[in-house]
């Protein structure tokens, strides 16, 4: 794991510099802080120039919008604007947590995300490993294209396919069930079926595309490792377990941390297309709740409060995952 210079290397020089600074301070007069920063900038200015576009992007698209987050604590009127709307403290949060449907949505969000992680995260890795074992190039290319395809289809179409596939009269699923003598089930109105259908659809749609990252990581594994393993008489199965997986483990962990950070951002447009009042019980998530309550009802301040809460939870999750990973695998995002 420490063979990946991107992650472990970053911490190295900083530590060395500190040690260097400390010993130097003891030895002679210490250069002022400003001087040191100036020297550093002069020496490394090209790096900082290269950083500017990213900083601008962050500032414009991520930091500036944060200004608007304050409406979560305000009685917001579009016409009065963000600054002129009066402060009301945590009232919107109290409204949210006093609402059973919000709590239910929160519960559903966590459950659906967890299922998504549990079943959805390993799939692209398994796919990538399977692709890696295919020897015939033409077959590999075709298979890859087929599994990538759903990623490029709009959610509306996917929802249409799902609704048709699970239709009690004409759907392929009920047709199969009919062959083994099961009565048709009206899946999309049954709360107990919503989560499996939703999570399954998500995997079908995205697993192929997500496997690209792992394929790239596998491609980066040094062939010499396999060559020496072959000389040692290792089987393909052993090579996968002893070489491929350990080599791409840092990638897997980074992807996992990122994934945990995005965990609460369920593709809610898909839920809106698939859910019904009859399935709200298991299908209504924070984002769809915000959509119904906030956006459709014009309560932007309340929607902002719910969104902010979502973001805070996601932040805590990603921090936790990062810390755990740092401690046990010494791979981390920062």
């Amino acid at each position, binding site marked *: 794991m420490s063979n990946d210079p991107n992650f472990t290397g970053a911490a190295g020089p900083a530590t060395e510099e500190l040690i260097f600074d400390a010993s130097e301070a003891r030895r002679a007069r210490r250069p002022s802080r400003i001087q040191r920063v100036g020297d550093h900038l002069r020496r490394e200015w090209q790096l900082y120039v290269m950083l500017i576009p990213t900083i601008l992007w962050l500032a414009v698209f991520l930091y500036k919008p944060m200004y608007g987050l304050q409406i979560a604590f305000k009685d917001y009127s579009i*016409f009065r604007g963000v600054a002129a709307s009066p402060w009301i403290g945590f009232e919107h949060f109290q409204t949210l947590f006093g609402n059973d449907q919000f709590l239910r949505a929160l519960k559903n969000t966590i459950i659906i995300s967890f299922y998504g992680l549990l079943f959805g995260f390993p799939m692209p890795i398994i796919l990538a490993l399977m692709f890696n074992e295919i020897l015939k190039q033409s077959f590999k290319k075709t298979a890859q294209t087929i599994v990538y395809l759903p990623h490029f289809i709009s959610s509306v179409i996917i929802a249409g396919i799902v609704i048709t596939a699970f239709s009690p009269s004409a759907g392929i699923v009920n047709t199969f069930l009919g062959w083994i003598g099961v009565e048709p089930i009206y899946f999309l109105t049954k709360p107990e079926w919503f989560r499996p259908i939703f999570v399954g659809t998500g995997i079908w749609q995205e697993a192929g595309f997500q496997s690209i990252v792992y394929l790239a990581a596998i491609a980066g594994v040094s062939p010499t490792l396999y060559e020496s393993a072959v000389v040692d008489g290792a089987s393909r199965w052993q090579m996968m377990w002893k070489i491929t997986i350990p080599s791409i483990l840092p990638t897997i962990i980074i992807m996992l941390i990122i994934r945990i950070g995005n965990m609460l951002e369920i593709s809610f447009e898909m839920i809106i297309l698939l859910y019904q009042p009859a399935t709200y019980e298991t299908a209504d998530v924070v984002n769809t709740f915000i959509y119904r309550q906030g956006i459709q*009802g014009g309560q932007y301040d309340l929607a902002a409060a719910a969104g902010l809460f979502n973001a805070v939870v996601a932040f805590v999750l990603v921090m936790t995952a990062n810390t755990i990973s740092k401690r046990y695998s010494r791979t981390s995002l920062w």
Partner: protein
Amino acid sequence: MRNLSLTMLATTALTAAIAVPASAESHLPITEEPLELTIHMHWPRAQGYGPGGDTSKLYPVEEVAREKTNIHLIDQTSGRNTKDNNEAMNLLLATGDLPDIVGGNLIKQPVNQYGPEGAFVPLNDLVEDHAPNIKAWFDDHPEIWDAIKAYDGNVYYIPYLPDGKYARAWFVRQDWLDALGLEAPDNVEELYDVLVAFRDQDPNGNGVQDEIPFFVRDWEEVLRLLTLWDARSTGADVYHQFYVKDGRVVHPYAQEAYRDGLANIAQWYEEGLIDPEVFTRGSSARDYLLGENLGGMTHDWFASTSGYNVALEDKVEGFNFIPFLPPKSVSGVRIEENRRIPMKPDGWAISYSNDHPVETIKYFDYWFSEEGALLANFGVEGKTWDMIDGAPVYKDEVLSSGQPVNSQMYLEGAQVYRGYPQDYRYEWQWTRDSARKGIELYDTEDLLIEQFLGVAFNKEEQEVYDRYFPSIQTYMLERQQAWILGSGDIQEDWDSYIETLNKMGYEEVLEVMNSAYERQYGG
């Protein structure tokens, strides 16, 4: 010409001075020198004030209006790259830089919310003093004037006022009825018998029991069946709305009649009389079920549903899908719950930054004059229509162009969502014969009921409503679908259902609804 307009102006000035409302024509042109006013006009057919949203061109109607009134509308529409008018309106309001006129789709809510905050000009006095045609129209329809008021009692926009009565109707496969020797059902028992016959007696004659007796495109249309047990599904032209019962605003889903009505719907659903896939079939239900010769009865729009008789003439032998009168309810009442709403939340308003409110209201008034209304409805005289025996008649090339007449009008600049009174003669001319027959049939009885045109909440009322109602509605719909689908029995669950509604704040919502209602309609 110049002399003439000067005389007109003098007359206008004179009548204004002695404060007697003049007839509309004497106002024209409204200004001596051309006056440019900027406009936001965002509506489904065009995002921008120009043919199809192309603001580099002028509507033919706008050219004539400029000539007549000397007011030149200059496009300044926000959010032209989005079709979502809510988003466009928010963008416009958030910039704070409002054009002189703000118009388009669904402006009532924002205008009535931000008008009292100072974003829009109250129109009451302006209409009273400078808009004789608008005033005359609302003098005839005081309830609509009440309905467009904001919570401070002022009116902030001039609405688009649709004409025509009917929207959706009951349709049945007459050829199926004939094949089984049945009559169109006249009451709820006969309706049940017909649906059972459709289910069991193979009216499409393919030897398989694959018929779907009653189907709908939007699942909420199933709820229209509630009216057969004297309950209601909604009070307005959108689903799940409050209605006025004995002078008090209530929600239909908290009434006793609803319990019995829904229990029957659940029964019919279980018996297979209602499309088992009604909740997911969606907008293609009608195409599919009629095209495959499977659907027997529906509740849907007059005009478009009649169209299937032509579209499926060759595909389904003997296809004859015609409107029938709403069946009488259990208590013998015959109503058609769905109708066109007489006032839309669309139209136009004057913003605070407009330096010419008087000229603007006079301009708004022009579209309520006879001449202006003809222009707004039919387009330019001599180009798309002629006056024949005192009635506007479309030219043949418009009626037989193969393009729907409304689409043609949208490009002319007619039927745009400006504030104007629509004229049903426009639509009647291109309504199909089968639909016309249906409308005439519906006209034989007094089927329509009053619509609840909504209330404008003040800030406190709005807060109460926002706090409670969205969750209540979610709960109502969850229970409703569950009961129809057979998980739970409404008769058994009813008491706990009402108890939960009350716990969720239903009474508080009713209270603010009714206080707003009384303020607005002087109840």
